[in-house]
């Protein structure tokens, strides 16, 4: 029976019908394929060519080899933008992930009441349009009248200048990042709900409390979910543009000059499209390396406890 079936499959895969179906399939996906080649692949390749040129969009590109790449590493603002982005990856991403996972674990706890509406509460900030959220956070972070410093003053803690302080501007952005972690919370919750209930029951019989169950059962089993969210967050940090553009324009003293913002500035304000393209390619390579390391270290797809 088995042999018979595989024979039929092999016959089918060689048949005219199969080829016709494949052709139809390709025809159906051709709009995407054409779009991909035209609007993604071609621009990617051309951006690499431009990265080797002195190019201002208006006049013809002039080939200068790898000079843009060399000049990038001599550029103090570029180095500062890399440091700022790294700060967000090393501090902002782990902190946001930690808080999102903790919130998800609590919201997944069936013994707690009101988790349904709490999930809604955590998700609501992600529905706020970025520009509105930015304007809101400018108010929230106001040094003399913002809600954060007002609360701190009740606790007799002098609030910092937040967005107007080179020291506190990045932590202010991290707070905002945490505020918008609702999407990650929903994905973590989906991952947590896939964990078999029997594992918790068995652990409970063995005397494990909530935190022990979370640490020893939930966390290892949602590792792929964590890795996915961390990857998305890291890519997000590399692409982070709207928030610093609207809230600080990279200041004060370049404290919030993040990678994409500087890339945009070079491309569209300083007419240095070649330089910006080189910056984009470095971003691609660095993002790839970081993500590959993460995949390796956290052993994606490996979900044994």
């Amino acid at each position: 029976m088995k042999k018979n079936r595989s024979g039929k499959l092999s016959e089918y895969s060689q048949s005219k019908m199969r080829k016709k179906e494949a052709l139809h399939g390709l025809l159906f996906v051709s709009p995407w394929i054409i779009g991909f080649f035209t609007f993604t692949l071609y621009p990617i390749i051309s951006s690499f060519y431009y990265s080797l040129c002195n190019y201002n969009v208006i006049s013809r590109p002039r080939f200068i080899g790898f000079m843009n790449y060399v000049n990038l590493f001599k550029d103090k603002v570029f180095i500062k933008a890399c440091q700022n982005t790294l700060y967000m990856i090393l501090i902002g991403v782990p902190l946001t992930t930690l808080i999102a996972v903790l919130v998800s674990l609590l919201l997944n706890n069936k013994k707690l009441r009101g988790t349904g509406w709490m999930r809604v509460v955590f998700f609501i900030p992600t529905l706020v349009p970025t520009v509105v959220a930015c304007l809101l956070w400018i108010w929230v972070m106001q040094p003399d009248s913002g809600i954060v410093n007002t609360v701190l003053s009740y606790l007799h803690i002098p609030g910092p200048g937040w967005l107007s302080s080179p020291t506190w501007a990045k932590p202010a952005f991290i707070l905002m990042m945490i505020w918008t972690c609702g999407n990650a919370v929903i994905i973590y919750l989906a991952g947590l709900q896939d964990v078999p209930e029997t594992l918790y029951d068995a652990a409970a019989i063995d005397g494990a409390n909530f935190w022990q169950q979370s640490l020893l059962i939930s966390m290892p089993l949602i590792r792929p979910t964590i890795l996915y969210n961390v990857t998305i967050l890291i890519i997000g940090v590399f692409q982070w543009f709207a928030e610093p553009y609207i809230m600080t324009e990279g200041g004060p003293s370049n404290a919030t000059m993040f990678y994409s913002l500087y890339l945009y500035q070079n491309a569209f304000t300083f007419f240095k499209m070649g330089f910006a393209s080189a910056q984009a390619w470095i971003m691609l390579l660095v993002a790839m390396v970081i993500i590959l390391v993460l995949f390796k270290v956290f052993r994606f797809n490996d979900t044994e406890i």
Partner: protein
Amino acid sequence: MIRKRRNILAVVAAGAMTMSLLAGCGGQIAPVETVSVETTESNTTSKTVAMGDRQIDVEVTDIGLSGSFTYWSAFTGDSATWEQERVDAFNEAYKDLGITCEVQYVPDGAGINNGKLLSAIAGGTAPDLLITDNPTSAYQYVAEGSFMPLDEILKQIDLDVNSFYDGCKDVMYYEDQCFLIPQDTNVIMLYFRPDIAKECGLDIDNPPTTLDELDAWAEAMTVADGDNYSRLGIIPWLDSGDDAFVLPFFFGADPYDKENKKINLTSENMVSYMEWIQSYAKKYDPEKINAFSSGLGGMFSPDHPFMTGKVGMTFTGNWFTGALRAYAPDVEYTAVPVPVPEYGRAKSSTFGCNVFAIPNGTDPEKASLAALYIKFCEQGSVNDDNFCQWRSIPVIDAAFDDVTLTKEGDPMYAMEREIAASPENGIPALCSVSAELSTQFQTLRENLIYDTSLDPATELKTLEEQMQAEMDSK
């Protein structure tokens, strides 16, 4: 192995998504064109048209062409309302000749500040005409070959720009060709609150004229509140003080030597300016100062620190009078020429122009029609309302006589005229790297403000060399 490959593929795909963000910028090259226009004899007539709720007399020039042209306006809010009235008036005036202006409102700075214009030029979808409030960046667009030389067209429409202020000509001409036409201009002054000055025992009839006097006034007006301040005399980097080269101009600095094509950030005047700025940072703590100025309390909002009485003085342009009238009508204010050091430029000002430009590649006929709009907008009767509302000033001294404020004997407008007439006036740092130079200079200033251990002369030298290299590589 397969999993490994799949992982690499996933990462590459993620990277590709990232790259595609920038990749869309790759556009086709627009060749730099010099358009020659057939000069026809112009025929100018007078007409009365409605502009908003008034009737105004305007000149209409017939150059034997008809059609429509697209126009990007940088104006927003009340200014956009005024712009729409102006466009409607133009369309009414030129209705019989079959000429129509199709206006689109394109912040920020008609797409110059946010890359929209650059993308449009690269993509061949640029407007036939635009106006921007950022002459410095517009000049860089000129240097990059984005705008059309206008000399021939100006002859065709019979618009004489020779009588424009010399200070405005800085921005109009690039390598002896005219590319940008200012609609109007503005002067920078020191605004102070007489009520606060009186409260601090200062003589409001003798406002500061020198830098030392300004510092003394600032100190007298400053009120400490524990570790913070409840009021500051002045924030030197607030409002127009935040512009890159406005205050250095008053110190007598010339950041760009046009003759020798050299960036000059290391003159004594420039170093003195930076040292003065740093002295405020050392004395008052920039983070505490910026607690006043951060957030949404911008120029056109009732939260502006001058309006709320958190600062007693500010450097800003004549438009601030309009803002005060709109958002803080009860606030008393006085405007005086900017105090300067003894080696500075007294009773002078940088010019803050709104400039018209026609992108390169515009159809020659449409360019001529667009130029008619420029000519229309240069008329005193069209601009009078703008002058009255924002106290902007004409680009020709003689045109002051036709402005209602002059006819009414407005003393502040007379002072603006006096300042505008100074031969020292101009627009600093206009070169092929204007935009980057301004941005980098502002960043350098912030660095010096927040890290007072940095030496201004050394930092300025480094930036000068960097920007000179940048300019030389173009």
